[in-house]
């Protein structure tokens, strides 16, 4: 079943796929056992002449043990899944790594705006740059995003990163990911947001370190030429 998932490119995606595999392994035997009991009963306990059904009321502890013991095992397995899920969840959702590449994402009917702080690393300055429907990030780096919506609820979904987070009007929601593989991947809106919801597509472009530098030079040529002149402090140093 795992092979149906799209290729995973994020660090924490492996943990999510691992959780998926754990649940497959824990639940499938029980599922087969229960279906097997139905099938077995239908095949071998069919009505025929002379057959008399068992008079089994299930009202003594001895008989109920057939239910309660498996249920106790299921309870234990539940907590195994809970524990694994809680750890993965806490790792992804309950802390945001520091010192990462920052980007602000604004969702609106019906596209995505990605706001980059520019070489100075700060929002609200002249070198901020907004790109529609394209998110460029360096490979192997933590990327922290802040999600905002201008109108209704959208959902920021990158299947290959295993990331989904609803975007709410009136709130800023922070999150992060770390892409391990370069390439161009689709970003989708996963929450019905109006008539053209289905067209609300964007792209995640994961660059190698060199490519990412080239991309920055292309988008912020002034900063790049300033950095090239010896003795001139870069925007980052000035800040």
């Amino acid at each position, binding site marked *: 079943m795992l092979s149906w998932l799209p290729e995973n490119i994020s660090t924490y995606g492996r943990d999510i796929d691992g959780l998926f595999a754990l649940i497959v392994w824990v639940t499938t035997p029980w599922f087969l056992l229960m279906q097997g009991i139905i099938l077995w009963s239908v095949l071998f306990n069919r009505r025929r002449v002379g057959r008399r059904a068992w008079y089994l009321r299930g009202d003594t502890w001895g008989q109920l043990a057939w239910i309660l013991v498996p249920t106790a095992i299921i309870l234990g397995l539940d907590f195994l899944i809970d524990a694994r899920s809680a750890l993965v969840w806490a790792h992804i959702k309950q802390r945001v790594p520091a010192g990462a590449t920052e980007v602000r994402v604004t969702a609106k009917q019906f596209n995505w705006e990605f706001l980059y702080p520019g070489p100075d690393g700060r929002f609200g300055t002249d070198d901020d740059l907004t790109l529609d429907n394209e998110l460029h990030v360096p490979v192997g780096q933590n990327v922290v995003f802040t999600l905002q919506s201008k109108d209704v609820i959208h959902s920021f979904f990158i299947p290959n990163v295993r990331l989904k987070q609803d975007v709410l009007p009136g709130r800023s929601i922070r999150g992060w990911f770390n892409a391990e593989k370069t390439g161009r991947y689709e970003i989708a809106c996963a929450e019905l947001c*109006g008539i053209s919801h289905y067209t609300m597509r964007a792209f995640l472009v994961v660059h190698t370190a060199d490519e990412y530098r080239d991309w920055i030079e292309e988008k912020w040529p002034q900063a790049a030429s300033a950095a090239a002149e010896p003795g001139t402090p870069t925007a980052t140093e000035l800040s």
Partner: protein
Amino acid sequence: MSVHAPAHAAVAHETAHAGSFWRSHVFSVDHKTIGKQYLGIGIGMALVGGLLAYLIRWQLAWPGTPVPGFGWVPEPMFYEGIVPETSYNAFVTMHGTIMVFFVAMPILLGAFGNFLLPIMVGAPDMAFPRLNMMSVWTLGLASLVMLSSFFVENGPASAGWTGYAPLSADATYTADVYWGLNLWIIALMLEFASFLMGGVNFLTTAINMRAPGMTLWRMPLLVWMQLVAAVLFMLSVGPLVAAALMLLGDRTLGTAFFLPERGGDALLWQHLFWFFGHPEVYVILLPGFGIVMEIMPVFARKPFFGYRTVVWATIAAGALSFVVWAHHMFVSGIDPRLANPFSVTTILISVPFSVMVGCMLLTLVGGSIELATPMLFALGTLGTFLIGGVTGIYLGAAALDMYMHDTYFVVAHFHYTLFPSVILGGLAGLYFWFPKMFGRTLNEPLGKLHFWLTFFSFNAVFIPLFFVGLAGHMRRLYDPTQYDLLEPLMDTFPFVSHAFVTKAAIVLIVSQVLLLVNVVWSLLAGEHAADNPWKANTLEWATSSPPPHGNFATLPNVYRDPYEYTPPGSKDDWLPQTAPAAGAAR
């Protein structure tokens, strides 16, 4: 007390009976007629819901091509038979709303609850017959209001059956769907009122009007399930009625409960909706389970295994259902620390459900099983529900839900919980109680053919959708070809493809014609049914088919538990609740 109240009610019914056709078939206060009226509304609305499913599936498999049979529908709902994006969202919304509120509840609670609950506890009618009539008429009105929204300017509601604000709170967000969504809210509030009246009747009747000897622990499991469902509904619906009024206020009066730019909150609606929405899942599930639990002992000729244990497990599941709602909201923007506690309670629900399922399985083991049509549908319900239950564990794990949420995996999962209960369970009940309800026998081979076609085509529709969801396919997508990721799911693989799923869905819908043929043929020319064709123990089989006004010629006395099949020391393999003598009585 339980001796006096029924006597009065029985007298009231005799006078009602003396009336005209209108009095006895339309404006009837008899719970049996009202049950059939609910069944009629449920089946009628199921035709609409099924038709919408066909339109949705056609667009997904062959986007932008004309739907066969819809070329005549005027613009802007269709364009020469092609479903436009506005209509697609509306069809998805209305399919969900109609199936949950106007098919599942009317059939499982309205029809089977109304028809069976009074007879099963040995009462001549519901405690409040006029309130009962008012509840079904309120539902009829609600259905008309809901259907009328198809004909207003800019079409019906299109914000999803969950109606997430602020999309639903301001008409400008949905391309000016105004009255469509207002009527949607009004129809839902009427529906809630209808089932509140029904719930009051169910509770009062089962508590106050049981026949002599019918103790709580001798009530059939279906009665227990209806009671727990009624309590869940009554306790959970209040917040949603309030939320619906607030939403209507935002849309029409200029309030801003759910509009953040004017001080409202976008998440408030989701909390109120799902606080109701999750118990609602059990409101629908439990009566379907109840039907299966009635049928299994009859066709396995065994007592129900662990009767009391199942009742306690049901109550536990009902209580737990009030503290799991945020599992619909793991990625909604709630404080992430809230997710793990809700993940634990959600997965914990597997405990009472494994008890219930385990008891059903042990009712089969060692039985003398006859695969009559009702039993086939009952086994089909259990077998397919297991898929819905198991896949719930995947979604209950918050970290995995980050990927799965709002994909077709969720769509497949909830169809595997609701379809077994509502359609397979409902059909099991219809085939089982049809002789009692209408006094005619259904055709058995035709019933079996109907089962196998329904069972296989249902699985052919929804098993592939799990894999479609795993591949990352979002729900409620008008045209999947917009995404490169989803392009291979159109028709590349033999089974996991929209084209295959849609073909299977058409088979599933067309198969239901067999039921209509069977019912019509049976009503016109079917054999008259015996009073107790299945040799079953519960009280509804101790009266004529169909039962007279007042249900019983003389009020029954109850001597034992409902599922005394194949009791030791008895030659027969059944012992009715009303049979006075026998060593097996406890």
